[in-house]
């Protein structure tokens, strides 16, 4: 009887603890929507900032973020998928493979600000790209490489081995089997992973601090070698560096960033559901 009571108490405590995790997440959204919801007007989203960013919109920050994020994924996706192909289809279980795996784990754990330092030293300084969209995008692409490799690899390994065997037994070369049989069947998983990565790097601030982000620019970016404003950096600036900032704009910017990230994640999740329904095996 006593052990039953103990169980009841323990389960109640675990339930309570799980609710503690639940509450802050919900309250963050409630606060953002309540305080920033009113700011989300077309004018706010689609005009330039004015009066030292204390009024007007955040269009250049939105465009800057989209530009950096899309460039970063465009670089990292093909490379990451090929790396995943190597690991899943070619690599043998040897020392080199273990080293690669360890490198991926550690690359994923490098602090984001250290990526910023690396991007500054390599892209901005040594390759002389300057503080620009392209330098920031390359920095983020390296940062996102581990997760693109991991999700692509999972997608590849979920393609049944029999698909490969049939193709190989018909005399098709290894690469052609991968290209025409394995890869098409892994595309949904790879795509879902890529969009989730897109969402995650849209919110990254530290890696673009010294490689791409500008405090304030008066015009929209014209080329990839321009400095740009970016949503997360803009939020940091207006919430810490500018006195007398109207709180509506700050909350509105935070809400915009969160919505952007969520819409992308949501798109990935919906895509995953659609593809899963169509799956033939």
């Amino acid at each position, binding site marked *: 009887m006593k052990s*039953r009571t103990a*169980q009841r108490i323990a*389960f109640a*405590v*675990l*339930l309570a*603890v*799980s609710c503690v*995790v639940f509450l*802050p*997440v*919900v309250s963050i959204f409630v*606060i*953002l929507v309540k305080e920033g919801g009113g700011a989300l007007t077309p004018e706010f989203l689609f005009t330039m900032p004015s009066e030292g960013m204390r009024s007007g919109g955040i269009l250049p920050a939105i465009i800057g973020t989209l530009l950096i994020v899309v460039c970063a994924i465009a670089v990292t996706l093909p*490379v990451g998928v*090929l*790396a995943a192909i*190597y690991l899943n289809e*070619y690599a043998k279980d040897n020392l*080199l493979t273990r080293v*690669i795996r*360890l*490198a991926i*784990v*550690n*690359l994923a*754990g*490098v*602090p*984001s*600000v*250290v*990526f*910023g*330092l*690396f991007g*500054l*030293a*390599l892209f901005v*300084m040594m390759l002389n790209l300057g503080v620009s969209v392209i330098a920031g995008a390359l920095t983020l692409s390296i940062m996102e490489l*581990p997760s693109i490799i991991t999700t692509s690899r999972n997608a590849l390994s979920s393609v049944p081995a029999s698909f490969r065997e049939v193709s190989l037994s018909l005399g098709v*070369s290894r*690469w*052609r089997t991968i290209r025409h049989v394995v890869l098409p069947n892994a595309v949904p998983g790879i795509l879902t992973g890529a969009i989730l990565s897109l969402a*995650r790097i*849209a*919110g990254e*601030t*530290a890696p673009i*601090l010294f490689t791409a982000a500008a405090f304030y620019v008066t015009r929209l970016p014209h080329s990839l070698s321009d400095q740009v404003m970016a949503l*997360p*950096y803009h*939020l*940091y600036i207006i*919430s*810490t560096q500018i006195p007398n900032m109207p*709180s509506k704009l700050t909350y509105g910017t*935070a809400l915009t960033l969160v919505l952007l*990230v969520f819409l992308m*994640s949501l798109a990935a999740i919906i895509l995953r559901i659609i593809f899963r329904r169509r799956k033939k095996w």
Partner: protein
Amino acid sequence: MKRLFDWIIERFIFLCGILAVIFVALIFLFLLREGVSFFGSYSPIKFVGGIYWYPTSDPPQFGIISLIVGSLFVTVLAACLAIPLGVATALFIAEIAPRWLKDVLKTVIELLAAIPSVVIGFIGMVTLVPLVRQALNLPTGLSAFSGALMLGFMALPTIVTISEDAIRTVPWSYKEGAIALGATRWQTMYRIILPAALPGILGAVMLGVGRVIGETMAVMMITGNAAHIPGSVFDPVRTMTATIAAEMGETVRGSPHYEALFAIGLVLFVITFIVNFTADTFLRKARR
């Protein structure tokens, strides 16, 4: 011709495969290059052993003890919050929660993981910081304590997701054996399942701690950024990551201050490398 094309593409695939290794090595080399050049002009002993971080005074002082203590304070405190919360939540999700509640909790955890750190920092600044200041009657709410609270929550998704995996992969036969011997579900959980899942849980905790050490934006916005040895957890502190992020913009490229920030980056890189390596060792042990 086809053969040649295949051969070339397979070489290229190999190159992409080892790219992760190349980048880890490159990051290390670039940090080391600036770091070594810094230690040419400033003694490494004074760097690692110095208490004062006065990069702009004359002569400048680059002692990182107070920054390391700042990072340590915030990390340990955040871990104290995140580890029990995270493991308990993982246990609840994996073993107790009914299907629908499990789905809800997992979605919430995923949402938490998706919130950008600068937004967490902002929310902490406008809600938690004033609350802490009033509740504890402090001169400022920007403190190690406030930072650790927010960081603890940021580490939760990592700890919960990976611990839950570890708990779920404990073989059924363990549970069946315990239940057959008359143990209650709770006794089975903490006597059998938890010990069996321990390597995986430790791995999860290490990964979570690694995230906290490397976290930058939220920490910079909430901890107050005072570079001194904190007297209590309610003092403002400054972490290594926040120092790099806050000061790099104002340095002259190639100056000792610039190089010193790279040297901090090197210290961070080495610490996170060790933490992640340990985590990986635990997780591989758990999988076996």
